Every structure is written in structure tokens, then in C-alpha cells.
């Protein structure tokens, strides 16, 4: 895809979503992101989407900083986890008649200019879910241990759900309204990413992987999951199956 066609596609999608009464909603779950949220929101707000930020019980000024932008802000009174925050944001977007819902990370790892590419197949009605893939796109400065963990997680997902994916645990996704209503996110913490994939497989939803760019930075790596977190996620998934 050359730059001209990319730009044209962006404009056409933006135009179409604006014509369809801006029914694309971007859901951002944020926890203690006061320093990075401003930059993230500046990028997303420029794209003129409907945005809802869910402050997941932050102890810093995340909530106050989010309110400086023309967006909706929800706040969990206590920290519940990314899965719960995304579910809250998705429920809110559905209440607002969203047709397409995009999940986007608050820490600036994702690129807002790639939202149109992700949204396009869902808006066209070709698929129910569009999943961002850093391994089809670009994973800038990804540590080797993270890459190895993700590759193992891809293998695990293929074994457990049967989905043949190039990336898992990528928070950049787009859901159709029907998919957002049907997929049940029960895992409040990081295991929600695996759960979403399991739901896609269980419900036999149509999906597509879209190349996206993920930029790793020192501070996001420090805050983010450790590779041992994969064990924790597996434990949470197991517990979720036992105590339904």
C-alpha cells in the first residue's frame, strides 16, 4: 500500500464514519497514566472520533488530565483491571449507539493514525472484529524476551482456541456493535485479551488481522506486564473457568 492510497483510504473512512453520525467510539482504559495520557489523547482527538476514557481507579491525576479533552471520562472508584475498564468503556459506547468500538492503549504504544485501517473492514461489514498485529506491522524496540513470550502465547492460543493468529495480547482492536454486544469479557485483569480471542473462536466470529505499529518505551515496559505475567494470566483463565 503506497502513501497516496493510504491517505485516500484514511480520508474515505473518516468521511464515511462522519457521514454515519460518527458512530466509531474509541475506548481507552487508563491507570496512573497522567504523564502519557495527554500525548495519547492529543493524537486520538485530532482524528475526531468519539472517545471514552475509563480511569481505572488511578491514584495520580489521570482523571483530571482526561477531563481537559472533549471526551467522556468514566472512573472506577477502585482499581479493577484493564479488562474491567475496557468492558465499562465498551458498555458506555454501546449505550451511546456506537456502531464500531475501538480499544486503544493509554500509554502511547499505539498510533492513532492507524485507527482508520483497523475500522475499515468492520465498517464495511466484512468482519466482526479487526485485530491489530504488531508482527504483521512494526514492533519498534521490542525486547527479545517479550517477543519470545508473545510467540509462545500465540502458540498457546492456537492450541486452546484454534485461532491462527500472528499476534495476541494486542490491545488495538475494533469490534462491530454486534461483536461488542456478544463477546463477554469476564476477566477483569490482563487475561481479558486471551478471553476475547477465545470468545471470537467460540462464537465463530469473522475476524481479520491488520498490521499496526507498536512502539515500546522504557517507561511502558517498566509499568507493563512482565514475562512471568503469562503464568498469572493462565492462572486467572483457569480460575475463571472453575468459578463461573
Amino acid at each position, binding site marked *: 500500500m503506497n502513501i497516496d492510497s493510504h491517505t485516500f483510504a484514511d480520508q474515505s473512512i473518516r468521511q464515511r464514519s462522519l457521514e454515519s453520525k460518527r458512530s466509531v467510539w474509541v475506548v481507552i482504559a487508563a491507570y496512573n497514566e497522567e504523564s502519557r495520557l495527554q500525548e495519547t489523547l492529543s493524537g486520538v482527538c485530532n482524528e*475526531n472520533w468519539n472517545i*471514552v476514557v*475509563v480511569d481505572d*481507579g488511578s491514584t495520580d491525576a489521570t482523571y483530571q488530565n482526561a*477531563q481537559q479533552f472533549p471526551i467522556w471520562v468514566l472512573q472506577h472508584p477502585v482499581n479493577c483491571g484493564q479488562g474491567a475498564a475496557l468492558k465499562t468503556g465498551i458498555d458506555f459506547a454501546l449505550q451511546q449507539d456506537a456502531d464500531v468500538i475501538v480499544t486503544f492503549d493509554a500509554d502511547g504504544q499505539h498510533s492513532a493514525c492507524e485507527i482508520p485501517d483497523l475500522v475499515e473492514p468492520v465498517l464495511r461489514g466484512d468482519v466482526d472484529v479487526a485485530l491489530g498485529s504488531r508482527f504483521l506491522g512494526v514492533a519498534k524496540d521490542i525486547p527479545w524476551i517479550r517477543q519470545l513470550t508473545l510467540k509462545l502465547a500465540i502458540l498457546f492460543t492456537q492450541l486452546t482456541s484454534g485461532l491462527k493468529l500472528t499476534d495476541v495480547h494486542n490491545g488495538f482492536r475494533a469490534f462491530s456493535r454486534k461483536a461488542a454486544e456478544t463477546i463477554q469479557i469476564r476477566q477483569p485483569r490482563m487475561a481479558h485479551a486471551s478471553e476475547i480471542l477465545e470468545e471470537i473462536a467460540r462464537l465463530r466470529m469473522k475476524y481479520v488481522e491488520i498490521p499496526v505499529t507498536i512502539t515500546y518505551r522504557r517507561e511502558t515496559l517498566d509499568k507493563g506486564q512482565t514475562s512471568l505475567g503469562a503464568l498469572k494470566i493462565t492462572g486467572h483463565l483457569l*480460575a475463571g473457568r472453575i468459578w463461573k
Partner: protein
Amino acid sequence: MNLFQWLTVPLLICLMAWELRAFIRRRQQLRLARFVIWLLAASLILYPQLASVLAHALGIGRGTDLVLYAFMLCTICVLFHLYGKQFILSRNLVELARREALRTPAAGRGLDRKSKYSASEFNDQRTGGSEA
């Protein structure tokens, strides 16, 4: 019967009666399981040689080892049960927090100018319409 037996066995019999009564009234399987545990404990206290006989039958050796292993297994079961309780409690707390968040959305600066869903419209929807 020695002093220890005099002190513990009546207590265990009371507990057994309590559990049995609760089981007959509410038909809770857990109560019956607890009744069996108290019964086993009382039997082992009254007849200590029973533990050794059982241990020999299971190939463990000493009766005290059998009691220790059984205690460890029980502890693991209790921990598993408590983790499940905590897991469900945590899930309920999350649901409560989510509902509270959905009940009180806040409009950021300048949202009224941008969004087709203004903050005032949203509040009207929630409260069932604004006053004339």
C-alpha cells in the same frame, strides 16, 4: 478416657450435632462433609490406635504421619475454597465499581461542542428528561 479426650470429644460431639441439624434443615452437602470430618477426628482421639491401623493399611507407617498428611490435604482444600470465595468477591466488587462508573460519566472540556451526544442530553436521558 484421659483429660484431653474428656475435653475434646464432647466438643466434637456438639459440633457434629450442630452440623447434622443444619444438614437436615438445609440439605447443604458441605455440612455433611464437615460432620464426617468431626466424626473422624473424634474417632481418632478416642481410639488413637485406629490411626496406626489405617496408616499401616495405606502403607504410610506411623499414625501421626497419616494425621499430618490428612491435615495438609485439608489445608490445601480449604485454601482452594477460600481462593474461590475471594475470586467471586473480587468479581462482585469489580461489577459494583463498573456500575458506579457507568452511572456517573463526566464530560470533558469542550465535549458539548464536539459530540452529537452532549453532556446535558446524556444527563436528561439518565434522569428521564429535563424540566421545561
